[in-house]
């Protein structure tokens, strides 16, 4: 049986004496498009930081493809688009990808081809030589997605990848995620957008006040008596934290 792409086992995280995550457990299988839902302040970003090895769990265990989440090996197999895209505005789109391709250790011969492929996929081939400062929000997000896939990772962590995008931009990002899923990549998608999650995710988990309130197959949610929106509102009691 294949190793889980992400496995969180009773993970708790306390920051500044305040519990942020409280014994959360879930498994993301390889090939899943996993939607991670929850209101603002529920603990989504902290969960992502634990998965990315930025925050060590206070207790419990976080594994990425069978390896400790904090290990360099695990991070080598993960691509990410975080809440802030983290692009270098003074550099061109091409230079941003070139920089990360070197950090991920791509060989000089593979690097150029891979960057061109990713720019093509992101629809930025003709703007590759422009500084990122001149890009629209949608272009930046597509470039960040391209950067996340440079090293052909097995797992993609996407934190609100469509936030702030216009409908066309959202559609493009969703299509990219679906294309990745078709190629067998695992996608961990943190989102507020219930419609988006329903369209593209195969499994979901819902977090509120640092606790997992729901973990289910999307098909089961769809076939239930209540809609995802109703379930979300019921389990989170409505709003941001």
């Amino acid at each position, binding site marked *: 049986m294949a190793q889980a792409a992400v496995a969180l086992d009773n993970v708790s995280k306390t*920051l*500044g004496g305040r519990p942020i995550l409280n014994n959360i457990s879930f498994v993301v299988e390889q090939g899943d498009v996993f939607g991670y839902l929850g209101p603002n302040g529920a603990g989504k970003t902290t969960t992502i*930081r634990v998965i*990315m*090895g*930025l*925050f*060590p769990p206070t207790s419990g265990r976080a594994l990425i493809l069978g390896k400790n989440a904090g290990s*360099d*090996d695990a*991070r*080598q197999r*993960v691509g*990410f688009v*975080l809440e*802030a*895209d*983290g*692009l*270098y*505005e*003074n*550099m061109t789109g091409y230079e941003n990808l070139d*920089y*990360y391709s*070197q*950090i*991920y*250790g791509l060989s000089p011969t593979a690097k150029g081809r891979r960057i061109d492929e990713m720019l093509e996929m992101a629809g930025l081939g003709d703007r590759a030589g422009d500084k990122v400062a001149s890009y629209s929000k949608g272009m930046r997000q597509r470039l960040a997605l391209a950067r996340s896939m440079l090293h052909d990772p097995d797992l993609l962590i996407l934190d609100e990848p469509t936030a702030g995008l216009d409908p066309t931009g959202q559609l493009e990002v969703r299509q990219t995620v679906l294309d990745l899923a078709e190629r067998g990549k695992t996608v961990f998608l943190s989102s507020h957008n219930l419609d988006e999650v329903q369209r593209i995710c195969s499994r979901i988990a819902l977090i509120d006040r640092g606790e997992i309130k729901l973990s289910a197959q999307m098909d089961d949610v769809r076939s239930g008596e209540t809609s995802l929106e109703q379930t979300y509102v019921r389990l989170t009691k409505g709003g941001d934290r």
Partner: protein
Amino acid sequence: MRQTTVILKKDLREALRTGAFYLHAGLALVIMAVVGVRALGGVIGGEIDALIEQGLAPAEVVSAIEPLMGTTLVMLALSLMLVFCLFGTAQNLTMEKTKRSLESLLCTPLSLKQVCLAKSLAIFVPCVVFGLILAFAAVAGTNQLFLAPRAGQSVMPGAASLTAALVAVPLIFFFFVTLLVALQLIITRVQWVNAVLVGLLAAVVVPLNYGLLGSGLASQSIVFVSLAVAAALALLTLGLSRLVTKERIMLNSKG
């Protein structure tokens, strides 16, 4: 090491594209021209005049002035590196933290040590190159404009001073930079770190310059003093490095 070089090259390239880099290079040039050549020419020139008045032969004057010239070179090199660092290159990490590109870098397979080393070198390398070039240029300019006409020949720093300037001062500066980077990473208001260090520069290094020049500290002593300062900074950096964790960096990266 290869990835450290990748970050170093990127940071240097990015720094060269910012207007602030050239503004601060210009500021360092002004400091060199005003403090380095004008003031030092006056101080050392006055010293030469006094020795000549005492009836010393030109060779004896040159020999008597040599330690002072050595101290000048060492302190000027250090001052220029600090000015260029605090007003210029050290701002890059501040930007990377507030724009949160550092967060993305920490999610890559790079270790925290690699990131810290690369960020330190990206500040260290241009400052050392600029500091040494400008300090030697100031010594040459001072000789040409003020000293050679009085003493009849140029006064070059001795071997001990050259060792201090080329080895001990860069060593002091390297540990200063690693300390600065560690503080910038774990303190939320990075601008305060820079401001406090600029204040320290004004309060300690500048008076120290004049004090050392006035005392004419012997060349041998300046090597030992410099190495002792470098060792103290290294110990401080080592102690502080225990506090630098990814979690602490993230929690203090709110811009």
